[in-house]
């Protein structure tokens, strides 16, 4: 598992760095550097094998179900990138130590940087493409954190967000592409995929895959038209820019192109998309770079342009172009990192990066100036420097193109133009900053940077020169293994030399240099021309775009989610109507095979009362009191219907519940405004009438369909076993407390919770208590009418006697704990009504919470008691005993369960009404005019 350590060491470094908050800046930098140094050592120790042409692997299973493993590979390409990432990373660590001011948090920057390094190392060493994507997204996250390092600057925040959005989008596209590849190939392992190029390319999904993967690469590598995020990422501290935009972040996209080159390249589509994108980016980047007054802006666009160049190279149809691309990756990383660092020094020492202010810096910082000029010359492609070599190769390769058919000559011409532009902006960088007269209004007095801050630049510039002078010696080994890796083993013969003789590429270079200098000398006109063009601010456009999306979303949400319950309910009901209604049309006949039974007058009158009651409720719903009376009729008739159709228990339950419900509704009447204003439009009323009648018809039809069908059910079992198995003759009650006692347990829990909830609702409730009724009549003065008070006292023991009776007989005859509980409760409620809650509380200070809990506890523990006998939860037990005088008596555990039900019901009902009563007793009636 050696290879795992390559990213892992950096990750450890990130953690280490984050803990250096209390240490000095030097210590922090040193501790941070330990891990990358170790990593570098590790990579170097592995390098000989790789350079010898081997590919190292290691693998660890992770999510086998998904084909995702932690598998690593170190081939030439990976080695090259590892070295770039680690070396430049180390230099950036050193540089950043001096760059950051006292106010900036060193550990934070280092931790993020190392996290980023981890991600990059992970990408380049991944041998599983999902793992690669894992690290790919990690770069997006860590770069987001890095770019927004100075989070107090709005441009940093916006820049970071934009970068994340663009690269995030690309990442998603990439994921889609990778999954597609995995599906086609049957594996996410890179080895397998690289060997299955034919499968992929011949698939009909190939274009989709290509576009998706390229979207990932192009967004990351800031290719046109996704390039605009990169300049805004310059809000990051310069060390970050130096790292992200030379060797790492943006190179990830290029790496991806190179990595998948064997699997995806080689088709016309590839060349067209990659080539044209690269070419466009090359030109656009170079052109814009020329007009940037901000040094980092110039470098940003130059980066875009060079990335375009590399992309174009990868898009060119020759193997040598690919070699050139890899070579330019190295070169660009080196000179661009040094340029960023130099810019950082200038910025650091002068306080500005504006080239209109920066002039004549040569005099103040000759040493830095020299370094910067060498690096810039490399960027321009001046001979004897590394940039020159790869650019020559590039020019040479453009000449061999057939990509654009008969118009292929355009490619070398445009390449030369781009070369000229790059010379021009490089010239501007050198001339405008270091010469060109005296500086203007610099915020600081410029002078050389600290010694060690310059070391990284020195190293990099030295590399520029070394590679430029001795390419074969310095980069050839790594370049060739890397090329082999990209080209899947058949890299062409090529020769890295400074001098290839007088040839067309050299001529192109010369034209470029001359043209570039000419352009720079005539820049005044160009700037004027550019100024006359409408300016496009990518950030503002992007922000405006996002803002528009957000605003649009907000409008939509406000439109749909308009906070109107009426609409929500309407939608719910409409959905139910549609789903229940449609199958009705599929039925052949509504009526089932069971014949209809006759209507007798008994039923007809009951039904008439029920229907008229319902309609009257509807018609008078705005006169609330009348509606309440009418709905009582409906409730009464419902219970009559239950008794009519052989359900005495239901009739009893409905009756008792009805009383409490009416009381609750009366509370609502009192505490709610007493009038229902007429506010529905006629159309709304029509609509509501429409949907309600439709639903009524549908439900009625279904009911009719069910009623007219023959019925077979499991209930014969209950009838057969009620007495023998449940010990009771009231089958409904035996079902409730035994066969389906679990439902009942849930049901009383609901009741208990409702009481607790209502208690909560009433806490600190500011009540509106009207001083007069809806017609403005003040309330009667007498609180507790005399006759009512004394009669209710006489009724109380009677009612309790009745409830005991109903409770005890429940198991064998209609009745039971629930009904008994409600009867008891109603008897007490009558006391509350007759005497007031203060009066009750003075006499009976029962904590209803405890009553509820005890009821629930009794029911639950009764159920659990059966465990003691090795039986399942709620297994009932009953037996008959001969008690002297009393005779044969049944004792059943179900009765205890029912006692739990009884207590819960009493506790809950009384808690609900008593807590409200308590509240109103404490609140004086206000003079609220309604």
């Amino acid at each position, binding site marked *: 598992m050696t290879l795992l350590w390559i990213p892992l060491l950096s990750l450890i470094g990130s953690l280490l760095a984050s803990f250096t908050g209390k240490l000095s800046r030097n210590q922090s930098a040193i501790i941070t550097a330990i891990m990358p140094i170790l990593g570098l050592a590790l990579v170097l120790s592995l390098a000989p094998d790789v350079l010898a042409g081997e590919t190292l692997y290691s693998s660890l299973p992770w999510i086998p179900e998904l084909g995702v493993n932690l598998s690593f590979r170190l081939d030439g390409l990976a080695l090259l990138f590892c070295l770039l990432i680690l070396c430049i990373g180390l230099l950036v660590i050193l540089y950043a130590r001096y760059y950051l001011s006292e106010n900036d948090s060193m550990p934070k920057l280092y931790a993020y940087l190392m996290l980023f390094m981890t991600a990059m190392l992970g990408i380049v060493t991944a041998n599983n493409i999902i793992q690669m994507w894992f690290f790919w997204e990690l770069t997006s996250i860590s770069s987001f954190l890095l770019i927004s390092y100075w989070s107090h600057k709005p441009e940093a925040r916006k820049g970071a967000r934009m970068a994340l959005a663009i690269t995030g989008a690309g990442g998603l596209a990439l994921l889609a592409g990778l999954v597609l590849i995995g599906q086609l190939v049957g594996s996410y392992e890179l080895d397998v995929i690289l060997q299955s190029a034919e499968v992929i390319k011949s698939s009909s999904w190939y274009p989709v895959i290509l576009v998706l993967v390229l979207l990932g690469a192009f967004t990351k590598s800031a290719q046109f038209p996704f390039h605009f995020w990169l300049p805004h990422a310059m809000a990051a501290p310069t060390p970050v820019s130096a790292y992200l935009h030379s060797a790492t972040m943006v190179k990830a996209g290029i790496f991806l192109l190179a990595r998948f080159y064997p699997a995806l390249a080689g088709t016309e589509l590839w060349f067209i998309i990659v080539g044209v994108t690269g070419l466009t980016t090359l030109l656009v980047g170079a052109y814009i770079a020329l007009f940037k007054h901000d040094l980092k802006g110039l470098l940003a666009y130059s980066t875009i342009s060079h990335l375009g160049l590399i992309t174009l190279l990868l898009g060119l149809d020759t193997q040598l172009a690919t070699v050139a691309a890899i070579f330019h990756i190295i070169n660009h990383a080196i000179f661009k990192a040094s340029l960023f660092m130099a810019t950082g020094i200038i910025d650091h020492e002068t306080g500005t990066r504006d080239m209109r202010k920066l002039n004549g810096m040569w005099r103040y910082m000759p040493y830095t100036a020299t370094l910067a000029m060498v690096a810039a010359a490399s960027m321009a492609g001046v001979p004897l420097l590394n940039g020159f070599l790869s650019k020559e190769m590039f020019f040479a390769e453009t000449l061999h193109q057939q990509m654009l058919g008969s118009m292929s000559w355009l490619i070398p011409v445009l390449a030369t133009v781009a070369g000229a532009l790059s010379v021009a902006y490089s010239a501007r960088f050198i001339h405008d900053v270091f010469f060109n007269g005296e500086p203007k209004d610099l915020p600081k007095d410029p002078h050389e940077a600290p010694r060690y801050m310059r070391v990284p630049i020195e190293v990099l510039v030295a590399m520029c020169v070394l590679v430029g002078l001795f390419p074969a010696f310095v980069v050839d080994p790594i370049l060739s293994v890397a090329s082999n890796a990209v080209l899947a083993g058949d890299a062409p013969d090529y020769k890295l030399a400074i001098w290839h003789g007088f040839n067309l590429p050299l001529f192109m270079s010369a034209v470029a240099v001359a043209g570039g200098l000419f352009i720079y000398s005539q820049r005044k006109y160009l700037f004027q021309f550019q100024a006359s063009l409408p300016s496009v601010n990518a950030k503002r456009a992007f922000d405006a775009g996002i803002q528009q999306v957000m605003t649009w979303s907000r409008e939509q949400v406000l439109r749909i989610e308009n906070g109107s319950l009426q609409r929500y309910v309407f939608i719910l009901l409409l959905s139910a109507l549609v789903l229940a209604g449609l199958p009705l049309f599929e039925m052949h006949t509504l009526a089932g095979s069971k014949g209809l039974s006759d209507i007798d007058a008994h039923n007809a009158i009951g039904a008439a009362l029920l229907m008229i009651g319902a309609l009257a409720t509807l018609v008078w719903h705005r006169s609330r009191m009348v509606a309440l009376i009418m709905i009582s009729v409906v409730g009464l008739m419902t219970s009559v219907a239950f008794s009519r159709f052989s359900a005495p228990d239901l009739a009893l339950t409905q009756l008792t519940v009805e009383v409490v419900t009416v009381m609750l509704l009366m509370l609502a009447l009192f505490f709610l405004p007493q009038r229902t204003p007429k506010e529905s439009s006629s159309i709304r009323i029509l609509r509501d009438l429409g949907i309600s009648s439709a639903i009524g018809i549908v439900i009625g039809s279904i009911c009719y369909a069910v009623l007219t069908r023959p019925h077979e059910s499991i209930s014969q079992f209950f009838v057969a076993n009620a007495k023998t198995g449940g010990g009771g003759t009231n089958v409904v009650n035996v079902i409730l407390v035994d066969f389906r006692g679990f439902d009942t347990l849930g049901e009383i829990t609901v009741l208990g919770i409702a009481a607790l909830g209502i208690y909560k609702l009433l806490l600190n409730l500011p009540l509106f208590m009207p001083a007069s009724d809806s017609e403005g009549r003040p309330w009667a003065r007498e609180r507790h009418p005399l*006759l009512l008070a004394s009669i209710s006292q006489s009724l*109380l*023991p009677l009612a309790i006697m*009745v409830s005991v009776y109903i409770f005890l007989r429940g198991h064998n005859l209609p009745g039971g704990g629930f009904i008994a509980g409600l009867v008891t409760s109603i008897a007490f409620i009558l006391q509350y009504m007759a005497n007031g809650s203060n009066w009750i509380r003075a006499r009976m200070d029962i904590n209803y919470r405890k009553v509820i809990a005890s009821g629930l506890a009794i029911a639950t523990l009764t159920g659990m008691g059966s465990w003691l006998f090795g039986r399942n939860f709620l297994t009932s037990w009953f037996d008959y005993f001969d008690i002297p005088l*009393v005779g044969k008596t049944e004792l059943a555990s179900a009765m205890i369960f029912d006692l739990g039900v009884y207590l819960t019901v009493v506790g809950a009902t009384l808690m609900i009404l008593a807590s409200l009563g308590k509240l109103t007793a404490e609140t004086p009636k206000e003079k609220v005019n309604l």
Partner: protein
Amino acid sequence: MRLQAKYKWLPTPFRTILLFAVWLLLNNSVSPGHLILGAVLAIVIPLSIAPFRKPQPLILRPGLAFKQLLIVLWDIITANVEVAIKILGPSKRLRPGFIKVPLDLKHDLPITMLASTVSLTPGTVSAEVYPIPESLPQGQEPEQRFLLIHVLDMGDEQELINSIKSRYEAPLKEIFQC
């Protein structure tokens, strides 16, 4: 008049008897089991809700009470026949009215019983007991109470008042000894 019963465990003997009877009626049984259970319940229930009882005069003349009950029952039957005829007859001939009966009774329970009796008997419905406590100064007891009665068909007002007082109120005073 007595407010407190003889035995603490039997705060309201009459009520206990009533409850016992109700239990037997409910179960429609006089089996030993129900006799025992009924007795226990009839004693336990009043005890357990004793705090809810406002101190009220006890029935001290049960025999008289029983006799009065029968009288009232008889009145109910005759009254109902009477009222039924009145209802079926032309309503224009009826002479409705309110009367106010000054009460000798002072306690709530006897007054309630009187009012109930009045409501159940010939063409009269108790409407109100005056004065209502809220119209008096805080905590003050009313000196004289009146019973407001609606009469369906009223002949001589005073005669009616007298008959109510003598036929119903006087026995109640006797029963409760107040």
